[in-house]
């Protein structure tokens, strides 16, 4: 009994080890991982060390407003019209945007997995209801609704909380896709031979679900999560760019908006934070693609 158990554990660890070995060979995926890790470091650096406070107007009194990039080493990417340092905003913005991207995705994953598992485990009416719900969320102009929510939140509540409320809104509107995928995967995996085999060997319902079904369900969810973080970051940038975000917290969209207002005099204020957005989102997309290749080898060769 004991030897069988260890054998089983080794094999299930092996599944992820194999995936990691495959992932390591994928240069694009590794680049994605490196990019995501660097932004995480940047965000933590900004949060913990905080060398220059976010949105600091210090330059306004030192005459270094509207400074072009690569001129002053104290302000490598230049300063904005009212003296805000662009590079410093990118550092502080990465904390804000990663918070929105990852936080909202986590909320979506949790709700999506719960709803999807419930619907997948008891197919029938609940399946039809879930299908209808996902339809509603596909039709809802989600961005428009989120903008509306953000505006109303900002109108109603304290501004410092607004970013967390955006996280919540994005999370709540992002779950249907996860539920849809989770339900489909559960319905598929449930009928596979190894699950039938486990059941016929007398595995309990919860053991079948958590040891056999969930690990196989995780790979599409992980891949989708990485892509969802990318999409959520873009949505957040759009929200702040349109002026519906929290004006007191640094985000990339906010500084792009400020740059766009003075686009004819200082192009760098909108340009460099945009580069940060593209690289960060690219990182999550590459990571997602790499994970997809590593976890679903069927699609490779």
């Amino acid at each position, binding site marked *: 009994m004991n030897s069988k158990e260890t054998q089983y554990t080794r094999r299930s660890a092996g599944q992820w080890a194999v995936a990691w070995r495959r992932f390591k060979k994928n240069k694009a995926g590794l680049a994605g991982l490196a990019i995501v890790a660097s932004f995480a470091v940047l965000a933590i650096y900004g949060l913990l060390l905080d060398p220059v406070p976010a949105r600091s107007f210090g330059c306004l009194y030192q005459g270094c407003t509207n400074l072009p990039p690569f001129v002053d080493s104290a302000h490598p990417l230049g300063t904005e019209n009212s003296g805000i340092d662009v590079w410093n905003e990118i550092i502080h913005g990465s904390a804000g945007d990663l918070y929105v991207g990852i936080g909202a995705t986590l909320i979506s994953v949790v709700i999506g997995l719960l709803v999807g598992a419930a619907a997948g485990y008891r197919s029938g009416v609940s399946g039809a209801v879930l299908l*209808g719900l996902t*339809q*509603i969320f*596909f*039709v*809802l*102009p*989600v*961005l*428009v*609704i989120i*903008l*509306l*929510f953000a*505006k*109303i939140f900002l*109108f*109603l509540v304290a501004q410092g909380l607004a970013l967390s409320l955006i996280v919540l809104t994005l999370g709540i509107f992002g779950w249907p896709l996860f539920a849809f995928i989770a339900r489909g995967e559960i319905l598929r995996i449930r009928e596979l031979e190894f699950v039938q085999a486990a059941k016929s060997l007398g595995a309990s319902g919860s053991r079948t679900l958590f040891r056999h079904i969930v690990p196989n369900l995780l790979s599409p969810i992980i891949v989708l999560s990485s892509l969802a973080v*990318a999409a959520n970051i*873009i949505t957040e*940038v*759009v929200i702040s*760019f*349109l*002026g*519906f975000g929290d004006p007191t917290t640094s985000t990339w969209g906010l500084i*792009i908006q400020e740059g*766009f207002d003075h*686009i*004819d005099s200082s*192009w760098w204020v*909108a*340009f460099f934070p*945009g580069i940060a*957005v*593209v690289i960060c*989102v*690219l990182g999550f*997309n*590459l990571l997602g*693609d790499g994970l997809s290749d590593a976890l679903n080898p069927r*699609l490779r060769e």
Partner: protein
Amino acid sequence: MGSLLNYIIRRILFAIPVFLAVSIITFLVTNAAGDPVQIVRLGIRNLNPAQLKAIQDYFHVNEPLYTRYFLWLADLLRGNLGQSLYSGSVAGKVVPWIGSTLELQIPAVLLALAIGIPIGIYSAKRQYSKSDIAVTTTAIFGISMPTFWLGINAILIFSLYLRWLPSFGAISPYPPWWWGNIYTDQLAHIIMPLSVLTFVSLAAIVRLIRSSMLETLRQDFVLAARASGISDFKVTYKHALKNAVTPVVTVVGLTFGTLLGGAPALETTFGWPGLGYEFVLSATILDLPVVLGITMIISAMVLAANIVTDLVYALMDPRVRL
């Protein structure tokens, strides 16, 4: 054909509860902002009691929420979108811009499809070749870019630096026209937003067609077709493409929805007088009836696009009609 008709009817009937659910959600969200009277007061300080009473009566402020919803829904179904909080009717503020939004969105989707499908096939046929790597790299950058930021860069280069194209609006307000007359003027205005929108949707479509085609080309029926001596061109474009393109149809339907939803940022960047721009302007001043009207119109458009997509899907794949 009977089954197809049946499918269409079922699909349209299914759209009704979805539309109602969407209307409930949007109505609740807009009502969360609170009393219209308070919002009007933000703009107009000294309302006299008669004006106050008129506003309260018009928006049925003293009725319970569900009564207000049904009153609003009844108006909506009769085609009456109500009055703006500031001036004029909602319909007057919204309807003129539907056309200019579609004028931008529909060509973008069609262009992206026309360019994206051949590129995706080409890339899948030469997997891991230099041209495939160039295509996939460009595509992943394309999907990683906020559309509006690409628009800002286009404005920087083509309007501010080169001064080739106008950066704002759909038409010059007064002469001189760009490139001579009023028609070329409109053309000059649409080039940048249309190219930016096309590029971003193109990236998504290329990635989709490529991966779908890769999967299809590996299937047994393709091998069987090749084995029976059918030419490579015919196998690719007739046998494989037909199967690879079906999942793309669904995504194009969804993309259209995302495009319409994503319109606010792009339209604001280019000052394009569309629904998205009007939405941003109205939401900024909390003109809730207008916001509600635009949201419902966009939802209805997305729903219609989804039904059309499903029909195309059903025509292409008979199994769906069952």
